[in-house]
């Protein structure tokens, strides 16, 4: 190993170690609570003296006031996340195809408006969104949250997909046109198969955005049987004597699906979201 390589490695470590600690300590903390009994949770030890899985059992069996609807709320989270991922993908793919490949009029305007939406923080839009959903009579319906999350996720999804589409050579479309493909056939037989990595990445992005959402879910849904697990976790804190070990256990369980999804689609996430950013 040359000296230059050593210093390079050292610099990377210097950045990498703090980032790793920053990420891992809260997770470690969460796991520590999840494995401790209520009495032991605040003992200040680095590892519980008597690690136990009893908390997990309590959560799975819904044996706590706050966890009465654990399975239903987990299902709500999943349903909403998958719906948001799928519908966002449908909307964004259609928009990107129309703007980038079919060159529809006004495409540039749509792209600029999409970008513009990010000048306003999503939190500012929460109350107007609440009013809008009220107007449409969607409050307390899971559609309200699904629609709101699609609204938040689509602009970014359209941008990423448009950039990725622009990278597909235009000759492919022309060849397909001469071969006799209609726009829909072009979309189905050429465009979508070639965009798969970006589509997986964008779909995952929207899905995780909805899975992790708290504010909008909190505002738009209120019945215990409608809310997502993220909101239910928040409810833990409304008591004076919160069962921290159960909160952390549920949180830990809640964090597992995103980690699994990310791990499964890791390959697509990196190439898909950076597609178009650099010349490959």
């Amino acid at each position, binding site marked *: 190993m040359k000296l230059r390589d050593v210093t390079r490695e050292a610099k990377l470590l210097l950045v990498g170690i703090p980032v790793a600690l920053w990420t891992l300590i809260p997770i470690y903390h969460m796991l520590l609570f999840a494995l401790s009994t209520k009495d032991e949770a605040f003992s200040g030890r680095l590892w519980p003296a008597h690690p136990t899985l009893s908390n997990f059992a309590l959560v799975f069996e819904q044996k706590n006031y706050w966890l009465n609807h654990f399975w239903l709320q987990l299902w709500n989270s999943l349903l909403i996340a998958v719906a948001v991922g799928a519908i966002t993908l449908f909307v964004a793919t259609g928009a990107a195809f129309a703007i980038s490949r079919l060159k529809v009029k006004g495409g540039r305007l749509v792209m600029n408006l999409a970008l513009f939406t990010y000048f306003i923080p999503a939190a500012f839009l929460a109350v107007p969104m609440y009013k809008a959903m009220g107007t449409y009579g969607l409050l307390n319906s899971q559609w309200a949250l699904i629609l709101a999350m699609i609204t938040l996720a689509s602009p970014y999804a359209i941008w990423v997909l448009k950039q990725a589409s622009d990278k597909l*050579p235009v*000759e*492919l479309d*022309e*060849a*397909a*046109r*001469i*071969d*006799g*493909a209609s726009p829909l*056939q072009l979309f189905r*037989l*050429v465009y979508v*198969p*070639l965009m798969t990595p970006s589509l997986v990445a964008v779909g995952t992005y929207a899905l995780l955005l909805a899975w992790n959402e708290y504010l909008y879910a909190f505002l738009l849904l209120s019945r215990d049987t409608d809310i997502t697990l993220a909101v239910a976790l928040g409810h833990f804190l409304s008591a004076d004597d919160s069962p921290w070990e159960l909160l952390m256990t549920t949180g830990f369980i809640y964090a597992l699906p995103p980690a699994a999804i990310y791990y499964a689609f890791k390959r697509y996430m990196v190439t898909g979201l950076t597609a178009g950013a650099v010349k490959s």
Partner: protein
Amino acid sequence: MASVSFRGIEKAYGTTKVIHGISFDIQDGEFMVLVGPSGCGKSTLLRMLAGLEEITGGEIAIDTRVVNEVESKDRDIAMVFQSYALYPHMTVRDNMGFSLRLRKAPQSEIDRRVGDAAKILDLDPYLHRFPRELSGGQRQRVAMGRAIVRDPKVFLFDEPLSNLDAKLRVAMRAEIKALHQRLKTTTVYVTHDQIEAMTMADRIVVMHDGVIEQIGAPLELYDHPDNLFVAQFIGSPAMNIVNGTLRRAGPAAYVEAAVGVRWPVGAGAGVDGEAVALGVRPEHLGITVPGGDAVSAEIIVVEPTGAETELVLQVGGEKVLLVTHGRPEVRPGDRIGLALDPARLHLFDRTSGRRLTS
């Protein structure tokens, strides 16, 4: 098979006009090459024929049917792109059969036609591969295969060999030509490479700045260029051009270049005192003893290539190239006379660039 005709074709992007009224006909079964420097409009013309560009003015007809408003897919044409434009996610077999699949042809017919095309192009062993697993030449052949499978009225080629290395280009050139001789399908081929044009074409259309400079068979363009542009564009190495003034002395004429250098041009064409450009191809110059009427030249560089020798000469103020077969005994610094055959000289009007005819 079909004929193609362009009638007063114009193309404008906004207010910028890039093609200024082009008319010519392509015969049934002809191999027509459109050649010209980049930006001359040759690709645009081809893309208008393909239906990929709007036609601003004029008419394009395939056989007798005007196709201005006809969709690409209904024009019965097939196109080979410079970048091949193979579908990356489909195997060679699927790439070649794609157009038939879209037309809902029965699977047995798709298999048969793809099989036939693969046989013609020696692609049999590669049918199950993806484009990324093929070499440049193989991809090029798949692109041609995709065109053949459709059995179109007209083949369109848009600079199909530009992405290949020099050696492969020569090989593919011969393959495309052989393919045309076998299938006899009307072909329109766009290139910027005049050698490709010369070697492949039945007839060549030389284009420049959106107009046609000359149409003709390859050797016709070579032997009788209509104007200075064609004279300099066709032929490699390029034709020598010497600027001077035409002088008539009795029955003979000569071109007086800058500092009293006189190029005898036989009877010549044009009038006394006219500003002309004299064109002479390097291989039409010969070496003779200096003195007398012969144009005197000094050898600057000697470049033997084996079969031929190229001499860079200084004649008056101008550099002139001479190509001769064999290996003359000359060295840089030597003085020689130039042997000229007046029948092989070309005289052009210097202002209009047109060929002068007597």
